[in-house]
């Protein structure tokens, strides 16, 4: 059992009962008891004022299995930090450069090499870009069968590369591709995968990857380890890690490999790009979002105008999407997209917790709402209390003025 109540220390204060997200802890006869539905997430231990709840110690776990000891990462011959260089039409996704930036730090902390894996067709130029952004080696599998992303051939090629070259860490972007491919590869290799990480670090003593991610819509953060199995796999959220600087002077090795890629069963027929989605929400530096306060579909025009002036993507709250004012693809929040732009401008959005879960890690949050008690103001860096139908057009005009001179 990784979570244990030390009954002699427990004061029966019930802080753990309030902290448990599963309602899986109760106080009986003045002592906390874990119920059957306990998932051992450890949320209770973090909140116990009496330090009466113990979570199995990381060192005990790392010492328990194969590959244990001071050089757990290398004991079984797994070395190096790999980044999956997701690309469309030969252009790596922006998150790849963020992974290379973060991967560099991890590789340096381990004293191991940073490599990229590039799967695709006619993607030669991309390999040089990856080297310019810090990859020491780029493993390239160039095959017509890999021209477009498809789960099965990509999973096959990736799993075979891992088995042959044995990286210790494999990072993927938490994109629709990464979040589909990652679990397929992890299950094939029977290793651990941590989804949607926002923090990565190396435990230098154990040479293990510390993977931190939000859960419960961002209300809780968890740090996760994969002590024994390799590679340690993680998908990483967009816009959280610092992008690697480009340096054309960097030299690296391009290793071209040939794989006998099996044809996929689930095959891509075509990609339909939707024009409403002018800017990719996940990659946008600035997002302007509209909510219930807009009142009707036509009023999204003022949001779009502001977005256009500052090159922003258009987002929406669930209320606006449920009302049918804007397609679901624009929805930000727990049931929509999780975004992390530099600037998030919330217009007529009250700030329901499910919305905050999707945008709460934005660098700067601007709230425009006529209700001074709206919850969004609790998280806003800058707030304007006022009628959005006056404030937003005024803001658009002011910014447009700036843009022209």
């Amino acid at each position, binding site marked *: 059992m*990784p979570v244990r109540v030390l009954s002699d220390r427990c004061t029966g204060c019930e802080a753990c009962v*309030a*902290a448990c*997200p599963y*309602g899986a802890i109760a106080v009986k006869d003045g002592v906390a008891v874990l119920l059957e*539905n306990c*998932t051992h*997430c*450890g*949320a209770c231990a*973090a909140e116990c004022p009496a330090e009466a709840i113990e*979570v199995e110690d990381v060192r005990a*776990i790392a010492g328990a299995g194969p590959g244990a000891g001071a050089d757990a990462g290398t004991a079984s011959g797994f070395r190096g930090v790999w980044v999956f260089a997701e690309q469309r039409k030969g252009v790596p996704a922006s998150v790849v450069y963020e992974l290379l930036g973060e991967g560099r730090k991890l590789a340096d902390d381990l004293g191991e090499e940073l490599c990229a894996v590039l799967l695709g067709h006619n993607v030669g130029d991309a390999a040089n870009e990856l080297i310019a952004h810090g990859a020491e080696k780029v493993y390239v599998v160039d095959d017509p069968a890999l021209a477009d992303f498809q*789960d099965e051939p990509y999973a096959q090629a990736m799993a075979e590369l891992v088995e042959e070259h044995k990286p210790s860490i494999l990072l993927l972007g938490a994109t*629709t*591709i990464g979040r*589909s491919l*990652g*679990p*397929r590869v*992890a*299950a094939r290799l*029977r*290793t651990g*995968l941590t989804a*949607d990480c926002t923090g990565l670090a190396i435990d230098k003593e154990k040479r293990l990857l*510390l993977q931190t991610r*939000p859960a*419960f*819509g*961002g*209300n*809780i*953060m968890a740090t*996760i*380890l994969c*002590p024994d199995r390799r590679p340690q796999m993680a998908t990483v959220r967009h816009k959280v890690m610092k992008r690697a600087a480009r340096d054309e002077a960097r030299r690296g090795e391009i290793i071209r490999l040939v794989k006998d890629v099996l044809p996929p*069963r*689930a095959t891509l*027929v*075509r*990609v*339909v*790009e*939707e024009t409403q*989605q002018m800017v990719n929400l996940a990659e946008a530096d600035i997002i302007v979002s509209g909510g219930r306060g807009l009142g009707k579909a036509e009023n999204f025009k003022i949001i779009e105008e502001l977005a256009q002036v500052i090159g922003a993507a258009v987002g929406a709250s669930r209320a606006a999407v449920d009302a049918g004012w804007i397609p679901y693809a624009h929805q930000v929040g727990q*049931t929509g997209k999780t975004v992390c732009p530099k*600037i998030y401008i919330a217009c007529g959005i009250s700030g329901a917790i499910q919305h905050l879960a999707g945008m709460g890690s934005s660098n700067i949050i601007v709230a425009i709402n006529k209700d*001074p008690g709206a919850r969004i103001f*609790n*998280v806003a860096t*800058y*707030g304007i*209390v*006022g009628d959005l139908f*006056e*404030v937003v057009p*005024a803001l658009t005009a*002011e910014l447009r003025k*700036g843009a022209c001179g």
Partner: protein
Amino acid sequence: MNVAVLIKQVPETTDVKISRETNTLMREGVASIINPFDMYAIEEALRIREQHGGKVTVITMGPPQAEEALRQALALGADDAVLLSDRAFAGADTLATSYTLARAIEKLGGFDLVICGKQAMDGDTAQVGPEVAENLDLPHVTYVRRIEELSPDHMRVQRMIEEGYEVIESPIPALITVVKEINEPRMPSIKRMLRAKKAAITSWTAADLGADESRIGLTGSPTRVIRVFTPEQRRAGEILEGETVQEKVRSLVAKLKETHLV
């Protein structure tokens, strides 16, 4: 057309509030519900049955009280329900969970289609679906927003991506994970609710599944949660004051210009 729907019981997290005093989740009276994304999976399965015939089987792994989620699914119209419950399953990460669910699907003889919600509301990992597919060696398609075509051996679906959507064809059996856009879930009928209350629910343990003990529960989970903490709460910033809207807006623009992004 026989369809399996994999569901998860989760706390009703959208109601969770953070206590200002203790900075912890407040769970007073928070109910357990079917993971909201799984409601779309159940609905889609019911629509497939209505069009193509066959049966809808809901499967969940969880503590004994997860039976409640299965009864809710039966009340919506599912034909059969299977609960995978055993202390040995506790502490499973996505890999161990997917292995366990895959064994249950095999024991049930397989399905034409396996449907999952795109992710669970508590863990938000979106990993169990593709991992189940890999365990069963089925093709999978994530983020399905529409089933365009379904025949006894083939499907054509739309998969949501950042820029729009992809059209994907696949033979079935296959596994799909679905997004909210795919349908509008129905409400349970009173008649079905009453019937669901009394319905027999199959309950299987690790032994029933013939599961490899090294691949289930905490033992079968390569990942370990070593620390859980509440993130630093964002503090309220500055309310921009001004006599007029113009003044407030100018003050905001000045602040935004400091970022050099606008």
